């Protein structure tokens, strides 16, 4: 298969409200940084791929229509991608596929969310006609599955708080992060308000405005770059129904199958040994141990032990979310692309203060819907 590489990345300063910019301006803030980082000129971009989560979040149906000019798609192919929270990952993978198929030489992938234009909690709680009007809110969907994980593997209560402390402290090293909390402690997390028992306030992602962009190029474009690129070793996407009888919400089959396909395609036999850093989609702290198992880094019931051992901190055996992850910045549509971009930044050696020393191979991961869509890639310093 043809090779593809990330030539450069860009992201916005993520905040609760970016009322200083329009949706177009938000996207361009990320795009302009990615163009500079990749040393790419607009004339070199062959196509644009736009990702965004549900249109109900901003109340703009098909925002790609009015954004086409601003995101540089005039006169070029423009594709819109939508796979709920995993959309940022899926957007990067669609752009990669366009390169690998030999259709284009350089593709711009951009994803955004401007949550402050409405209220995501409201938008995610619209009642479908045939379920009882129970009203659990956004975190209420995932909290019972976290409870199931804790029960299944008898995980101790402090694991979720440990992840929150680690990610928020990591976020303090990331100038673009929405939440930067260097002084957070295990006690302060455990004393924070219980929102959706067993999820506490400090164990929950924020609601952010933000965007992310990456420029992906073919082998010739990568070789022409005078900076380190992130070679895309493998990508994988899998889907399963949100609900079906016997669905394992703790360890969803689509995630397992995507990970198996990813490791095989990347030639990775032991991901825990061979992956140097992972950016995993963790909107609620307990999803770190759950996804460590789902991705096959460790076996069932071993995820919380890896987290508890401290090995997922920067400097540990498998640093997870050195950027601070979704727990620090959550512009939903962009959150997946941020994971993919951050993994690329690590192997390009451009992650600044949250750089993991010697990161040569990295994982970017996203999931969306009710643990329905999974997208992931492996990037490396070498092709």
């Amino acid at each position, binding site marked *: 298969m043809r090779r593809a590489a990330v030539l450069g990345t860009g992201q916005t300063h993520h905040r609760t*409200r*970016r*009322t*200083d*910019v*329009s*949706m*177009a*301006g938000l996207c*361009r803030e990320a795009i302009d940084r990615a163009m500079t980082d990749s040393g790419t000129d*607009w004339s070199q971009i062959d196509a644009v791929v736009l990702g965004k989560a549900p249109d109900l979040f*901003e*109340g703009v149906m098909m925002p790609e229509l009015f954004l086409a*000019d*601003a995101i*540089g798609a*005039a006169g070029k192919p423009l594709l819109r991608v939508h796979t709920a929270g995993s959309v940022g990952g899926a957007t990067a993978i669609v752009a990669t596929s366009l390169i690998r198929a030999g259709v284009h030489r350089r593709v711009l992938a951009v994803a955004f969310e*401007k949550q*402050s*234009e*409405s*209220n995501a*909690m*409201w*938008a995610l*709680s619209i009642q479908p*006609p*045939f*379920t*009882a*009007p*129970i*009203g*659990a*809110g956004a*975190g*209420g969907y995932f*909290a*019972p*599955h976290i*409870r*199931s994980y804790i*029960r*299944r593997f008898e995980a101790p209560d402090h694991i979720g708080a440990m992840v929150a402390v680690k990610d928020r402290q990591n976020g303090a090293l990331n100038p673009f992060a929405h939440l930067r909390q260097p002084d957070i402690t295990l006690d302060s997390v455990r004393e924070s*308000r*219980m*929102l*959706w*028992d*067993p*999820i506490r306030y400090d164990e929950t992602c924020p609601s952010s405005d933000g965007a992310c962009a990456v420029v992906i190029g073919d082998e010739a474009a990568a070789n022409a770059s005078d900076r380190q690129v992130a070679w895309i070793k493998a990508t994988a996407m899998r889907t399963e*129904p*949100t*609900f*079906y*009888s*016997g669905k*394992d*919400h*703790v360890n969803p089959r689509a995630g397992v199958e995507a990970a198996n396909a990813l490791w095989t395609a990347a030639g990775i036999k032991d991901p825990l040994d061979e992956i140097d850093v992972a950016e995993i989609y963790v909107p609620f702290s307990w999803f770190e141990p759950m996804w460590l198992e789902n991705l096959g880094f460790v076996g069932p019931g071993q995820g919380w032990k890896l987290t508890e051992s401290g090995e997922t901190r920067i400097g540990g055996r498998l640093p997870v979310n050195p950027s601070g992850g979704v727990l620090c910045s959550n512009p939903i549509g962009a959150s997946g692309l941020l994971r993919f971009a951050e993994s690329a930044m690590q192997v390009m050696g451009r992650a600044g203060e949250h750089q993991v020393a010697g990161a040569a191979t990295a994982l970017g991961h996203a999931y969306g819907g009710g643990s329905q869509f999974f997208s992931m890639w492996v990037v490396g310093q070498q092709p």
Partner: protein
Amino acid sequence: MSIAFDYTRSLGPVLSRFMTGLRDGRVLGGRTADGRVHVPPLEFDPLTHEPVTDLVDVSPVGTVISWTWVDQPLEGQPLSRPFAWALIRLDGADTALLHAVDIQDQDQIRTGLRVRAKWSPSRIGHINDIACFEPGSTPGDISDMSPGEPVKIMTTPIRLHYRHTTSDEEDRYLRALADGRLIGQRCPACRKVYVPPRVCPADGVAPGEVVDVADRGTVTTFCVVNVPFAGQRLDPPYVVAQVLLDGADIPIPHLVLGLDAGDVRMGMRVAAVWRDRSEWAATPVNIAHFEPTGEPDAAYESYAEHL
């Protein structure tokens, strides 16, 4: 059903100047590198990709380029009587603006007609500050608005009303609810009983045999909702649980009330509390919530595969 929200629009530097201009009774266009003036202005030049910074005044008077007639205006449209939607090129602009033209009769609107902005008496920095257009070749009356701070954000209320047509399975399920019964349907391939009945998500086939299921079951897992949020119907804290009804192979989400939220357990046996029969309709709302039955808890193994 209705869905409604007052969305906001952060305007950014260019549209902020455009909306502030409307409030002050001016129409601004944006000049792109090729010299063309766009109304409304574009934020980024589609040819050079640079931000547009050159904003110029255009006339509130222009020419109808094309139009269509609206015989029965809809909710939220600028006029409640029949009107024309028109593409209007304002004098000094190179692009057309879509707006309503207030005109008595379809026979009076035509391509080439000269129209002018009819300003709203109170303007706030919103596209509706131009109430509509009307025939005329000189600017219309305009009330003075004391200039204020630049307009940076705009509110756009959105209202959606829709009807859902029920499928055969939904229809059967809702009619059973109206009789105080809960039914499921068995997938002919995997033999699992789905409540509510649906096309099997695993096998993709239409459901078969109709099966009565109990209005009692087991709490598989749950969360305690402590957080208040927009549109909430109960005061927190309360418990939302996954309830595996006896005879069903997939849990339904529902409220578990009638005890302290902290006392709800995985495996707890619960039963539906139906509303008064006089209130029943073809809706899941007939079941108010679930309450503990007092039976011994179900063994973990009995529901572990439904987590």
